[in-house]
């Protein structure tokens, strides 16, 4: 008689069991190990760490496996895990000038101290499918040379000597924490950068792209892009000094932007900044463009109504975990609301028809 459209406990359990089976795929094909994902899908692992805001390649690889390769789902798993972790303290700011770089390029100077190092990049590969990868086989070893010792100075530092680029005054205040306080607007630059670095890569990319096409144009050059590992140090109160607790791989991008000056600032170059976990250069470059576009107010520029200049628009929509959850919630039952709408439309239709009949 009454066919229940409502689901139940058993349906959920069965769905989960089926999902587990689908995740495994054909049992005749060897199972993917978390180590394999961590080593061979490292850029996916990096993205999950960056947007999950948790630097742990093993857990990120596990999340990718569990999520069947759906990276946003994997980010979600990492975020949900991260929020349960105790907060023991915070590290000192990492020193990116002391980074052990595997890649470091500048688009503004042909050469500079520290040199141009291409590193492991897709940049000049021809995007031709490599059918050799269909078969398994060892990769010939890449030629090696000794690492350049010592800190690699930042390119923008050279510009700074002539006062050609704005100086960032050192700030000793403890930055706000997006994951521990509600987002309140207007946001400080620290908060904006936090939101951007964990924001969805696709969203940040599109926002940055829109500035290049004229929606809030900031004339960006990549002053420097560097990828490498930095030491993470933490002050231990009992010891009275900082101790290195590990290292993380980072991508850092500083853009140099043309700036003709405003009522409050002289003509000089201005900066946009991007910093992302792992080798994630598309994200780091995009982040630095969006950062720069969002700085219009402090630099005394005009607001052109461009989406990338609009702090509330960018910050409230950058997070893919918030976005995907809310987007997908519309597949939950809404029949109570829909019923209310049905009654309303029926009533309005009845009235409209009556009026039509009366007019005829």
């Amino acid at each position: 008689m009454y066919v229940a459209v409502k689901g139940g406990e058993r349906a959920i359990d069965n769905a989960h069991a089926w999902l587990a089976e689908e995740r495994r795929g054909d049992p005749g094909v060897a199972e993917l190990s978390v180590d394999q994902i961590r080593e061979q899908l490292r850029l996916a692992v990096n993205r999950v760490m960056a947007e999950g805001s948790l630097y742990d390649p093993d857990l990120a690889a596990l999340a990718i496996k569990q999520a069947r390769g759906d990276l946003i789902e994997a980010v979600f798993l990492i975020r949900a895990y991260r929020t349960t972790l105790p907060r023991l303290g915070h590290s000192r700011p990492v020193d990116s000038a002391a980074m052990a770089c595997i890649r470091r390029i500048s688009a503004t100077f042909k050469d500079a101290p520290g040199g141009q190092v291409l590193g492991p990049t897709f940049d000049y590969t021809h995007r031709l499918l490599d059918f050799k990868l269909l078969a398994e086989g060892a990769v010939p070893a890449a030629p090696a040379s000794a690492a350049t010792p010592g800190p690699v100075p930042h390119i923008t530092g050279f510009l700074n000597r002539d006062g050609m680029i704005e100086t960032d005054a050192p700030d000793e205040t403890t930055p706000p924490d997006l994951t521990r306080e509600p987002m309140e607007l207007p946001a400080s630059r620290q908060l904006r950068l936090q939101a951007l670095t964990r924001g969805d890569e696709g969203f940040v990319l599109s926002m940055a792209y829109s500035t290049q096409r004229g929606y809030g144009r900031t004339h960006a050059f990549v002053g420097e892009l560097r990828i490498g590992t930095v030491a993470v140090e933490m002050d231990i109160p009992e010891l009275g000094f900082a101790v290195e607790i590990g290292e993380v791989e980072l991508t850092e991008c500083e853009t140099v932007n043309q700036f003709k000056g405003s009522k409050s600032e002289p003509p000089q170059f201005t900066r946009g900044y991007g910093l992302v976990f792992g080798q994630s250069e598309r994200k780091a470059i995009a982040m630095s463009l969006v950062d720069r576009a969002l700085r219009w107010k402090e630099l005394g520029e005009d607001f052109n109504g461009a989406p990338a200049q609009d702090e509330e628009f960018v910050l409230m929509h950058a997070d893919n975990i918030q976005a995907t959850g809310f987007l997908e919630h519309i597949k939950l039952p809404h029949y109570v609301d829909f019923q209310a709408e049905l009654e309303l439309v029926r009533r309005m239709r009845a009235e409209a028809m009556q009026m039509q009949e009366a007019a005829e």
Partner: protein
Amino acid sequence: MTDQAYNFAYLDEQTKRMIRRAILKGVAVPGYQVPFASREMPMPYGWGTGGVQVTSACLMPEDCLKVIDQGADDTTNAVSIRKFFQRTAGVQVTEATAEASVIQTRHRIPETPLREGQILVYQVPIPEPLRFLEPRETETRKMHELEEYGLMHVKLYEDIARHGQIATSYAYPVKVEGRYVMDPSPIPKFDNPKLSDNAALQLFGAGREQRIYALPPYTQVVSLDFDDHPFEAGKAPHDCDLCGAGESYLDEVIVDDAGGRMFVCSDTDFCASRQAVGHRGRLSPEEV
């Protein structure tokens, strides 16, 4: 069985304290949206994370929990959230409205009147009643501060001018104690009268939007209207086909290929308890 890897009711005590402070502030200023540092939960944003965090902060080991979605205890998301708390808090659960001390709900207020001591926790998708009139949070907060609700009245007036009536059937805006305009969450406007003068504590949690608000017991809540277009709580003009109730909110169910319909109570506990004491509807089987 409680999952030992997590704290009671999942959230750590520091987080619960932060949420309880937001709840207390909400209770002190009824209808005001209190920002809180919403956490990522193990279910997606938009699926009740705000309600789950509020419930988690309210639950005590001796509580008895009921979870409903669309009025029903057996909808998938209600089942999922109930299971979550069974697993992480090990509290007693029930489907009976009268037995529950904490009820988490999505889109409905139970038909059975609530009593003192009960807590009703609403899941809220968009806490801002002015959001679809003004998309900027920075603006809407200012409008609440200045009690500048003219825009809302203009919208309701335009509805009447265009459609002859206020064309909002759920998430119908209310005014709380003559001060804050509040979104009651997407409950059908049929439920709006139950918001006012309710004996239970009503808490609203919006996880993604990081807001909590509250209606303490016996708060006066008025649905916005005009003198010549008074608020009307609407429902389908039928009785329940299973229990015969004439005053409950109904779901419309399509029962055959010919488009045949039946109407049944959306509140499954209300309907089942009426059937248990012998009430019958148009399509009830002879014997139960």
